[in-house]
Structures are given as structure tokens and as C-alpha cells.
């Protein structure tokens, strides 16, 4: 039967963000998108634009400098969306864990759907993780997903959710730190 929902898993556009990683995993991600591993055969494209993306591929342990950016990029993506954490340092802090200028893992800030281990994560793992994310995308609803920190209440503008108002307040102290 023809259902629009079925096409979520046929076409996936990626937003890749580096939250302070060592670039090891980023290079593996680019290798996946290149001709050798050819993620495009699943309809995957790297768009680099949060407003048109379905998946946030995030690397790095989240440095203090990049916290607001992560949250803001996440709020700018229209639902349904999935978040994939690539690399050990993104999942738990990895080699950076316990350092003075990083948070241990990205899931303190935004809800993560798929964790890909490895330092650096191999292209095979990344492909598996992305396809796992594709499966999850089918079961996602279109409700607004909220980040866990640095985020205030949803603001509204004439009955519509005002994303600009939300983005303007990202990073203000929310009393949870």
C-alpha cells in the first residue's frame, strides 16, 4: 500500500556536526559517504543543513564551546529526526573522559538513538549505525523532541511553534546546571 511514511527509510539526509572530536571519526564518516563505501546507495546524502536533514551524525565529546551549538542545531531540525553518536568519545567521553573542558558524551544534552562504538569507529560500524537509525526513523512521531539541557520552554507565535524564539534562548541558564 502507498504510505508516505514508508519513504522515510528510502531517503535520508544527514547533518554532520563535530562537537570537538579529534577528526578521526569525521574522516571515517566522509569515507562512508565517498565512492568506496557509497552510503548514497541507500539514498543517504550529506546536506549540511539542519532544516533539511533527518539525521544528526555527531562526533566528539561535546566541549564547553560547542554545547550551545549542539542544542541549537538539534532544535532546528524538523521532526521526525534521529541522532546518531559516532565514536567512543561521543558515547561516553572515551579518551577525553574526565577532562576539565569536555562533557562526557553527547547524551547529557540531546536524546541519542544509536551509539556507534570504536575509536575511531570503522566505516562498517558507521554504515550499520546509520541503517539502524533509518529503521528507528520509521517509528518516530512528529512531536517536538526537546533537548535535555540549555533549553527553556517552547515558545509560541500565533499558535505556531516559534523556533526562532527557542533558538534565541538556547544557552541561557535553565537552572539545571
Amino acid at each position, binding site marked *: 500500500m502507498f504510505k*508516505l*511514511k514508508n*519513504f*522515510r527509510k*528510502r*531517503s535520508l*539526509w544527514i547533518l554532520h556536526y563535530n562537537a570537538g572530536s579529534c577528526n578521526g571519526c569525521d574522516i571515517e564518516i566522509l569515507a562512508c559517504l565517498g*565512492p*568506496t563505501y*557509497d552510503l*548514497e*546507495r*541507500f*539514498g543517504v546524502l550529506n*546536506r*549540511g*543543513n539542519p*532544516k*533539511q536533514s*533527518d539525521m544528526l551524525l555527531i562526533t566528539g565529546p561535546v566541549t564547553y564551546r560547542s554545547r550551545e551549538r549542539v542544542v541549537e542545531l538539534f532544535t532546528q531540525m*524538523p*521532526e*521526525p529526526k534521529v541522532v546518531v553518536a559516532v565514536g567512543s568519545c561521543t558515547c561516553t567521553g572515551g579518551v577525553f573522559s574526565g577532562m576539565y573542558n569536555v562533557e562526557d558524551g553527547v547524551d547529557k544534552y540531546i536524546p541519542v538513538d544509536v551509539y556507534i562504538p570504536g575509536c575511531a569507529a570503522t566505516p562498517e560500524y558507521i554504515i550499520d549505525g546509520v541503517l539502524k537509525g533509518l529503521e528507528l526513523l520509521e517509528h518516530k512521531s*512528529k512531536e517536538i523532541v526537546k533537548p535535555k539541557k540549555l533549553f527553556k520552554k517552547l515558545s509560541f507565535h500565533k499558535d*505556531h511553534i516559534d*523556533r*526562532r524564539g527557542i533558538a534565541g534562548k538556547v544557552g541561557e541558564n535553565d537552572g539545571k546546571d
Partner: protein
Amino acid sequence: MFEIIFVLSAPLLGGMLQGIERQLRARMQNRMGPPLLQPFYDMFKLIEKRPMIVDEAHTVFAIMHFLTLWAVVAMLVLGDNLLYVIFLHLLATIFLVIAGYSVKSVYSHLGANRELWVLAVYEPVLILFAVAFYLLEGSFSLQSIYSGQAHLFALLPLFAAMVLVALIKLGKSPFDAAHAHQEIIGGVEIEYGGVFYEFLYMAKWVEYIFIYTLFWLFAGSNLLLGIVLLAGVFVLLNLIDNATARIKISDLLKVGLIWGVGLAFINIVGLLYV
């Protein structure tokens, strides 16, 4: 009858063309590539996403851009005057530029600026293209071009200039600085999301049909030559796209003005005096 069906299904045909193109480019790079219907899968997915409007005017201009381009294709196939078609196409581009300026986004403004720069390169070539057909046929009438003889050999320099225009217009490297994805994140299209981005996405498909129909004019009523010409141009554009890297916008202007406008101008002078 055939023409009307062609016009009505122009976005569909453009989508098919883009699917074939993505497959062809993948094969050139020795990889599998997405399925043939991938552009339509993307379309359905975009429709299903949560809608997101940055600004009402911004969104309306994107829809206007798409509809005007569609009207351009209709006029090119059914209409009678080549010059009107070229100017209506200019209007479609202007809608896109206004859309780019209508949001407070630096990248969108940069994209709109660049859109205007490349307009200064390809618009003279398109107008000279119409003039050349006027010199050969004695009128701007499209129907007489479609039923006339093939002018490819009288217009070879212009043909080369049109290949350059096609590269710019369809956003192929080395001349894709106007939509550069890694540089200005798509330029004008950056602030669109969900179903509203769909209109710009489909506008690109219609643009494909517009450009390839312009190439069809070179063949006149010669069906076989037309098909060979289109297939050749299609492969050539993708080959160039795959084999080259992007050049800077300032270099694009230089190359475009010297080679594009230069070749078209030489062709016109040749038609007048030789």
C-alpha cells in the same frame, strides 16, 4: 497533444532525469548509486516532514519561482516567441533572488548575491542565443524553429557557450559557486525546510527540462540529431561535473564572460558578416 502531456508532466520528467543522472554519476565514479526513483523518494519524505516556515513571503517566492519556471517550459514548448521565454525565465530567477533577500540569513543573502552575479554571465548568452535564431530564421517564432532545419553547424560556438550556461544553471562543477554546498550551504535554499523546500527541489527538475529543451532547438526538426544531441550533452555535462573541482565565483565571472559571452558574440558576428 503530445506537447501538452510533455508540459504537464515536466516536473515528473525532470525528476526522472535527475534520477538517471545520479545513477550515471555514480557509475562514472565506479559505485552503485541510488535507485532510479530516488528523487521521488526524497520528495515524498520531504512532504511528510513537519512543516517549517521561516517567513511567509520567503515561502511564497519559492512557490512563485517554481510556478514561473513551469510556465517558462509551457511557453517554450507551446508558445511562439523565444525572446518572451528567455525574459520569463529571467523573472523566475528574480523571484528566487528576492526570496533569498527576504530572510535575515547571511548565507541566504550571499547566495542571492551570487545568483545575481551568475545571472550577469548567462543572461547575455541566452539573449544572444535568441538573436542567433532570429538571424537564421528571420523571426523569434519557436514553431518555425521546431519545424525548420537543424542549425547546429552554423551555431557551433554558441553551442559551446550554451554548454557553459547549462553547467552554471544546473549547478554543476566547476561552475556551481552559486549553490556551493560546502561553501555557502546551498545559498538561497538554506532557510527552507520540509514541504516548502520541495518546491525548490522540483524547480530544479523543471530547470533541467528547460535547459535540455533549449538544446533541442539546435536540432530543429531533425529528430535523430536532437536525440543524439541531448544524450551527448547529458553525458558531457556529467563528465565535466565529475572530473572538475569548483572554481571561485570571481573566476566563474571571468571565464563565463570571456568564453561564454565571447563565443556567443563571435557566433553572431560570424552570422552577420560571413
